[in-house]
């Protein structure tokens, strides 16, 4: 067996990729590995590439050990754990030169698949499992846990940390902890005896994850909904948003059951389809509860009609769109930012909607709360545009904080006393000259009653087909949307004040962009950066666009939807905007951004920057 070259040493800076078959419990093994490294104080990134399938198809998990804290894909694979014979050929090819591949050597692999420039290590995982565990299912599960032990030996992952994590996940089921730990130890011991431990790729304790958590965006968003005081959650299952409502329900079952009566301070309603889910959200919000739904692109398509009604009749609503690859059914388990335009202008007629763009789970939490406040303040639907990468992968992010002084902004809702004091209540009258009318809730006062409708209405709430009366309301809605610009979060801008080149991104592109900027800076190319957090675009967005001559717009869709939205909704000339597009369904890599920027700037610019 060839000894790996010492020159390739990469401490706390390498990528492990694990090729598995879905439904074999590999996810637990992979999460265990990632979490162990995180617990050793080393920043880490984990991405799950799974099929739209329950059992038997290929699935990959990518762990990036990143001492510099880059939470995006790098594009490298330094260590491949090839557990799936079906994808073995492809997996071998994917390893970066000088890298390693581990496979189950219980069965011989064709030498055709070997490569001269990587080190291939065999471990008879299935054989060891068969010798030590009983039962088919058990053996399959333990085989995966066992490679975690092999990697622990090769990479010097602390076995005590692994033991502790197993204890945490299995709780009181000591037999499970013991069985899993036995598998880990078997793998570990085998590797120690037969493999060149440690590899030049290895981990070393750091102190860079203190004050951080590893959480997925859907869980964080669900927690945000709990803290926002949402009580009604109508939804229809759809990947990749399902785990959001599942998490909300599970948090509520722990936190929202009245200790005295055993009854629930929440209602999660599984609707018959997305049309119904959004209808329920509207009904509940209209009736004074905070209600939301979680869905993905196809669900948004179905919800369009109701979204237009909510816009026109001014009913608050919060929608989480955990974006997946379109068009149509697309690739349900792959990621994209492809619903920008469909959400911005959802429904027929003149409609525009508020959107928030969380860039990681941390922002999913805070923006969930913000979304409810904005929806009720503005009496309109608010979209939180997350994506599969944020929603379903565990991200390292700062521990979430809560301000106990927070009170929900319920917007302009009149109390019984306020209604009774009015000469007459008019639902859509711009009384305060801020384009936001007052609303009343059912059950409060007969004097506050009004008729909510999606058909033409005047500012008093009455039905109308009168040209002028109709237009008064429609024009106020436009003013209200302009007012939203002053209420939504401003972009994050990192600018030197000297560069005339800018870079614009939203959402989950953040990690790749941060790393790409560092790489470019090392090459002497400094680029200003604006991460937009909301639509409508604020004046800061306009300012950034105006003050840069060449602006790269980075986004994860084919048709440059963000660029379109910027040209439609700001004064920026189209010719200033250069698209960097990534839409193959995998999370973005910094590599791709660097290459695209360098290509666009050309040799001359590069030399000038380096000079």
């Amino acid at each position: 067996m060839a000894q790996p070259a010492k020159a390739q040493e990469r401490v706390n800076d390498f990528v492990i990729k694990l090729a598995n078959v879905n439904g074999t419990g590999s996810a637990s093994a992979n999460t265990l590995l990632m979490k162990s490294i995180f617990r050793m104080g080393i920043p880490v990134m984990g991405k799950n590439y799974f099929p739209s399938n329950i059992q038997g198809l290929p699935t990959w998990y990518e762990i990036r050990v990143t001492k510099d804290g880059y939470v995006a894909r790098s594009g490298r694979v330094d260590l491949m754990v090839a557990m799936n014979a079906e994808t073995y050929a492809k997996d071998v090819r994917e390893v970066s030169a000088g890298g390693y591949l581990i496979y189950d050597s219980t069965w011989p692999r064709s030498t055709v698949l070997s490569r001269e420039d990587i080190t291939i290590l065999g471990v008879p995982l299935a054989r060891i499992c068969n010798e030590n565990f009983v039962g088919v299912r058990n053996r399959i599960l333990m085989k995966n846990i066992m490679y975690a032990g092999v990697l622990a030996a090769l990479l010097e992952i602390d076995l005590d940390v692994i033991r502790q994590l197993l204890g945490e996940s299995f709780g009181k089921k000591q037999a499970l902890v013991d069985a899993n730990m036995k598998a880990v130890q078997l793998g570990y011991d085998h590797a120690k005896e037969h493999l060149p431990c440690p590899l030049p790729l290895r981990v070393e304790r750091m102190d860079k994850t203190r004050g951080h958590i590893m959480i997925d965006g859907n869980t964080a968003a669900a927690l945000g909904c709990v803290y926002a005081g949402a009580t009604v959650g109508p939804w229809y299952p759809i990947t990749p948003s399902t785990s959001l409502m599942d998490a909300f329900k599970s948090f509520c079952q722990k936190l929202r059951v009245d200790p005295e009566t055993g009854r629930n301070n929440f209602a999660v309603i599984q609707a018959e389809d997305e049309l119904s889910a959004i209808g329920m959200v509207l009904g509940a919000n209209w009736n004074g509860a905070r209600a939301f739904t979680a869905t993905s692109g196809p669900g948004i398509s179905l919800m369009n009609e109701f979204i237009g009604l909510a816009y026109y009749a001014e009913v608050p609503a919060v929608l989480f769109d955990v974006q997946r690859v379109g068009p149509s059914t697309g690739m349900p388990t792959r990621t994209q930012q492809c619903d920008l335009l469909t959400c911005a202008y959802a429904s027929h007629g003149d409609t525009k909607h508020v959107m928030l763009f969380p860039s990681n789970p941390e922002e999913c939490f805070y923006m969930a709360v913000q979304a409810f406040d904005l929806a009720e303040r503005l009496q309109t639907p608010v979209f939180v545009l997350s994506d599969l990468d944020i929603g379903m992968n565990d991200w390292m992010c700062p521990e979430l904080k809560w301000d106990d002084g927070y009170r929900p902004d319920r917007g302009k809702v009149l109390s019984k006393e306020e209604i009774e004091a009015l000469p007459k209540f008019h639902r859509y009258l711009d009384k305060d000259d801020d384009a936001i009318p007052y609303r009343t809730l059912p059950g409060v006062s007969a004097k506050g009653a009004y008729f909510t409708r999606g058909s033409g209405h005047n500012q008093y709430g009455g039905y109308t087909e009168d040209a002028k009366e109709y237009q008064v309301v429609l024009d106020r809605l436009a003013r209200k949307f302009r007012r939203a610009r002053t209420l939504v979060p401003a972009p994050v801008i990192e600018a030197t004040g000297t560069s005339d080149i800018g870079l614009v991104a939203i959402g989950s592109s953040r990690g790749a962009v941060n790393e790409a900027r560092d790489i470019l800076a090392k090459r002497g190319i400094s680029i200003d950066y604006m991460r937009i957090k909301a639509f409508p675009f604020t004046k800061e967005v306009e300012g950034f666009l105006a003050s840069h001559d060449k602006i790269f717009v980075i986004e994860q869709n084919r048709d440059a939807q963000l660029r379109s939205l910027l040209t439609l909704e700001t004064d920026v000339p189209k010719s200033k905007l250069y698209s960097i597009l990534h839409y193959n369904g995998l999370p973005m890599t910094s590599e791709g951004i660097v290459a695209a920027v360098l290509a666009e700037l050309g040799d001359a610019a590069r030399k000038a920057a380096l000079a």
Partner: protein
Amino acid sequence: MSFINKPKVRHPDLPTNELGLTRRDYEGAMSTLCAGCGHDSITASITEALWGLSLRPEQLVKLSGIGCSSKTTAYFASGSHGFNGVHGRMPSVATGANAANKELYYIGVSGDGDSLSIGFGQFAHAIRRNVNMLYVCENNGVYGLTKGQFSASADIGTKSKKGEENLQAPVDPCLAALSLGGTFIARSFSGDREQLVPLIQAGLKHKGFAMIDIISPCVTFNDHVGSTKSYAFTREHYHEAVHADYIPPQREINVSYGEGEVLPVQMHDGSQIVLRKLDKDYDPTHRGKAFEYLRTRLREGEHVTGLIFVSSSGPDMHDMANTTEMPLNKVPYEKLHPGAEGLAKILKRYA
């Protein structure tokens, strides 16, 4: 349609209910439907029923979809909040509204197009959830606003105004509701106020989904010879099987009924529905028999009316969701989250 506004004058001798309100207090805007429309008679019955129940207008929520029937929620109870949603989707709005506040009374008014075609899914699932509401289906067999196309409730062989014959099998909302587990299923006729008013009252008081299918002739597009939903045809083929009287709580039953024909059904708030069986062998508490009876009579070309089936013991949506007694929109914010300290505890497993 009439273009005059309703006069605001109130006669001093108008009778008042327990709240001191007159029938005028339960009226709404002027109807814009065609003169003689069955829907307007239903509106009048709803107004009468609400007044009779002495409901505070703000206790009621009115919901509807799109269509002639759906317009009618504007024509009664102007002191109640109304929500005119999108076509066929009223049940979901009602479900959400009810989830938010279980204390109010919900009345949804829909039509055969709204309920049985575009909204058939939502209609079915609201029944399955047993949402606590009264669902009125104003059934005329045609699309009125778009000028007389057949709806899904049009009977085989019925003729459109232009003479076209319907060949597709109809959807019967009562049979559908029976098979979906509906807990209060009634059929009536817009012209029979004596039957309709107590049915509406009982339906509002029923805990769960109460559906009343009301044959309501369309005078403009479906009241001709050859139509099976005309006034003439309906009157001729009308068969009242069970008459329901609504008896409020603490009120004694003082109507005299014939021996063996009376079946009192206790409602959750102490009120009662007294069912007067006009057809001796009929059992409105037996789902299978109700289904069979309805089918048999339909084959004979008869519209069975009255309270066809009732079961007051099943769990409604809130029971199934085990929600707290307090309406969810009134639970104080402090009870909904565990604060900064609680968050730190929750996050431990993610560290």
